């Protein structure tokens, strides 16, 4: 069986032969759909074909173009443009769909050659473009149109997003890191002189001078750069849950204070160099973690795209015709009209109409609920069958949906990797070191009191929470980075610990094992109507739905009224006065049990009240790598399950053809949840892979929930990992890599603790001068980091 060729633009398999193609020089380039073809031709005929050579990943499938004319309204422009007196203006746009430097290059070139644009700077990290242009020469809508034509999705950059937080956090972390780094190097030089002096002799004045200078330089390092550790340690104490930060803060603080005392008294040892190095290494480790966290945060929780860009607003109290305005023009008290199928643009109270709203975005509840006038409605909910009017009560940053996003971000940030094995070790470690230090102090006090304090201090410094503190985060970050480069974005660090214990993998069918792109394979009319007429009726019923089934039917010039979606059964509506039903045979025509023409394939029935009209066969292809991935997972000794909402025999046949261990079809979301719970009650650890809003509760219930890239944003935000690349082979790789990661973490912890156990008695005996402490600390930290870096190389197959 030959593989279909990949689309030149987005890499998906081309199933339509050469229907969408371009000629360039002597070769024909094949694309998978009209959107890819349009984007590729814009790029190549615009002279920017080099983009395809520069990029290192295929592009994303471009979405259908939207109308940007609402962006040209003056009151909206006033808000988002920064205008200058000479007529030029700047605008910041969020750009979706960028993933490599070549995209940046493409966007900048395409924008800069537009007349009226003087400068376009695109940032891949922040996923935004800063454009300087003359609004009189070129409207904002034309800029957005240009961006969409080459395959990206522009949105105005409004203040209520997480980006500001990321930028502030990043800058503050960098400032601290820089101060710590420069301070460390300076103090290191002075310390070298002091250590040499300790061995070879140094004049007292010079030694005091150097000590004072070291104290001076180390002070900003401790008071400014090391602040996060003290704050976190204090929080840990207050919550009675000390973490890894407590031993770190203790070591830095006590060593610094004791060294100041020694300098003041001109007596004893100083440890400014160790303190500065601690601070720098640990800040560096945290900085890398933060970068990884920001990366996943930016790509996964893009709630901006969940809200519509425009809304229908009534201008006055008596107005009956609404006009289209941009979302950010809405104010509290405005009346807006929401049509069937549209997303609610703001929080508010329902004034008229009894719509059925799907609030899955906010509540995770997949079944739509009927609301009445007077009920509240939240932004992000999707309207079902009835239009209704809403009185706006909250806009912008006050929306419930943003509060939900902030909660999720807080939850994610507070569930930092430190709440794992390393933290449990840290608590024991703190107790042990403090007890040991007290013991050492009392012993020395009996024997030689003048040395007691300094020996105890060297014990504290040498016990080096540095390596211990780095042991886990560096490994987790390295593993996350390695897999992220291959296309699996791990957003919850505990995935690495739990993946190694997984016993069962549960797969959703449509969109997970299969590509989720249903195509209409054939139509069998049962009456005098032609195939095309039946298809047009079905397409009319499915207009406006984003379900994969709907897209298979294509476009239609028939408009249907009263469209109602019945979850799990089908869709009903009336066209030209006749009621139709399309969906599962037993629901469409319940009177008589009708069997589809064949046993394989997914069959839908179309009927009007008098008679069944036609059978449609929909075909969903397996992903090309599914069989290989399933085999690999089975070889790892896992029990594989298919858990699908599709009740057709085709689903069961698919499961059997993949030789999965357990197959469950026609499951409702509640049944899916119960299935996974039962497995867990049997003591099994479940990894669930899914792609729809219906999978949300199950993804949360499973020990590890992985969302496909095509899943709605809510599923991706709540999942533990997102499969960015459409490659199920990343699943066995995740499991292999997590086993390696666990081993590396254990090695690191063993090494760090082992080093401490070895160094402590030596320090307790009073044989560790400051220079040896500093060397020991740096060397052990280096070992831990180098060991963790192995995880970035050993990631198996590379793309």
């Amino acid at each position, binding site marked *: 069986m030959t593989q279909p060729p990949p689309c030149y633009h987005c890499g998906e398999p081309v199933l339509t032969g050469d229907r969408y193609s371009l000629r360039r020089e002597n070769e024909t380039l094949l694309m998978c759909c009209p959107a890819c073809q349009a984007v590729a031709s814009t790029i190549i005929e*615009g*002279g920017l074909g*080099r983009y395809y050579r*520069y990029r290192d990943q295929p592009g994303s499938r471009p979405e259908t173009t939207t109308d940007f004319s609402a962006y040209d309204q003056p009151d909206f422009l006033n808000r988002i443009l920064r205008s200058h007196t000479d007529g030029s203006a700047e605008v910041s746009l969020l750009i979706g769909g960028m993933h490599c*430097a*070549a995209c*940046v*290059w493409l966007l900048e070139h395409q924008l*800069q*050659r537009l007349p009226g644009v003087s400068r376009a700077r*695109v*940032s*891949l*990290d*922040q996923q935004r473009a800063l454009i300087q242009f003359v609004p009189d020469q070129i409207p904002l809508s034309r800029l957005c149109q240009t961006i969409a034509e080459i395959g990206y999705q522009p949105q105005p950059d409004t203040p209520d997003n997480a980006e500001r937080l990321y*930028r502030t956090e*990043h*800058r503050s972390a*960098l*400032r601290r890191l*820089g*101060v710590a780094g*420069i301070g460390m190097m*300076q103090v290191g030089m002075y310390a070298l002189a002091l250590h040499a002096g300790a061995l070879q002799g140094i*004049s007292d004045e*010079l030694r005091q*001078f*150097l000590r004072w*200078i070291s104290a*001076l*330089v180390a002070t900003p390092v401790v008071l400014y750069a090391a602040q996060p550790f003290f704050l976190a340690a204090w929080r840990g104490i207050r919550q009675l849950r000390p973490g890894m930060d407590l031993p770190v803060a203790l070591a830095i603080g006590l060593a610094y204070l004791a060294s100041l005392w020694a300098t003041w008294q001109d007596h004893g040892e100083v440890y400014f160099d160790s303190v500065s190095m601690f601070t720098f290494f640990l800040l560096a480790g945290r900085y890398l973690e933060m970068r990884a966290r920001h990366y996943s945060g930016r790509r996964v929780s893009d709630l901006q795209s969940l809200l519509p860009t425009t809304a229908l607003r009534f201008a006055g109290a008596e107005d009956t015709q609404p006009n289209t305005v941009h979302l950010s023009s809405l104010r509290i008290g405005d009346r807006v009209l929401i049509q069937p199928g549209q997303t609610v643009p703001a929080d508010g109270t329902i004034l008229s109409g009894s719509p059925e709203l799907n609030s899955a975005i906010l509540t995770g509840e997949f079944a739509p609920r009927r609301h009445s006038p007077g009920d509240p409605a939240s932004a992000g909910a999707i309207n079902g069958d009835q239009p209704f009017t809403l009185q706006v009560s909250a806009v912008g940053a006050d929306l419930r949906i943003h509060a939900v996003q902030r909660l999720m971000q807080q939850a994610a940030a507070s569930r930092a990797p430190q709440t794992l094995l390393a933290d449990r070790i840290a608590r024991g470690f703190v107790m042990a070191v403090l007890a040991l230090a007290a013991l050492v102090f009392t012993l020395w006090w009996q024997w030689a009191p003048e040395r007691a304090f300094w020996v105890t201090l060297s014990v504290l410094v040498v016990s080096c929470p540095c390596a211990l503190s780095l042991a886990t985060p560096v490994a987790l970050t390295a593993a996350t980075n390695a897999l992220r480069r291959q296309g699996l974005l791990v957003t919850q660090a505990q995935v690495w610990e739990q993946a190694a214990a997984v016993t069962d993998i549960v797969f959703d069918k449509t969109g997970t094992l299969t590509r989720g792109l249903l195509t209409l394979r054939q139509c069998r009319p049962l009456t005098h109507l032609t195939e095309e007429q039946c298809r047009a009726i079905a397409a009319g019923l499915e207009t406006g739905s984003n379900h994969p089934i709907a897209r298979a039917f294509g476009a239609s010039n028939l408009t249907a009224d009263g469209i109602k979606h019945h979850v799990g059964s089908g869709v009903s509506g009336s066209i030209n006065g006749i009621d139709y039903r399309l969906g599962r045979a037993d629901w469409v025509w319940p009177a008589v049990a009708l069997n589809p023409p064949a046993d394989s394939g997914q069959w839908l029935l179309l009927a009007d009240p008098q008679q069944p009209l036609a059978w449609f066969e929909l075909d969903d292809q397996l992903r090309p790598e599914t069989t290989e991935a399933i085999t690999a997972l089975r070889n790892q000794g896992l029990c594989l399950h298919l858990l699908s909402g599709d009740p057709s025999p085709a689903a069961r046949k698919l499961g059997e053809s993949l030789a999965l261990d357990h197959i469950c079809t026609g499951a409702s979301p509640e049944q899916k949840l119960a299935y996974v719970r039962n497995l867990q009650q049997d003591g099994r650890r479940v990894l669930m892979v899914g792609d729809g809003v219906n999978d949300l509760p199950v993804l949360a219930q499973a020990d590890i929930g992985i969302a496909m890239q095509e899943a709605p944003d809510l599923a991706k935000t709540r999942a533990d990992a997102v499969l960015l690349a459409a490659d199920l082979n990343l699943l066995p790789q995740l499991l292999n890599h997590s086993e390696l990661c666990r081993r590396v973490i254990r090695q690191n912890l063993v090494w760090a603790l082992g080093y401490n156990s070895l160094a402590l008695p030596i320090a307790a005996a009073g044989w560790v001068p400051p220079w040896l402490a500093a060397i020991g600390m740096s060397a052990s930290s280096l070992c831990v980091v180098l060991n963790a870096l192995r995880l970035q190389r050993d990631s198996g197959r590379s793309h």
Partner: protein
Amino acid sequence: MESLYILIPVALLLIGGAVAAFLWAVNSDQFEDLDTESRRLLFEEEEDDNDTTSPTLQQDRSDD
């Protein structure tokens, strides 16, 4: 060794300047998006050889 009593304070002043410059660079967003900038060099090199169609770029070339 007495020279150190002068040299080290001078060095500290320089360090102060370096830290100030670093903080300024961070605050003016110069450390954002380091990945694109490193690749940008590779893109710009090839531009003059291959491109023949765009009038804008031809205009650039005629400037130097």
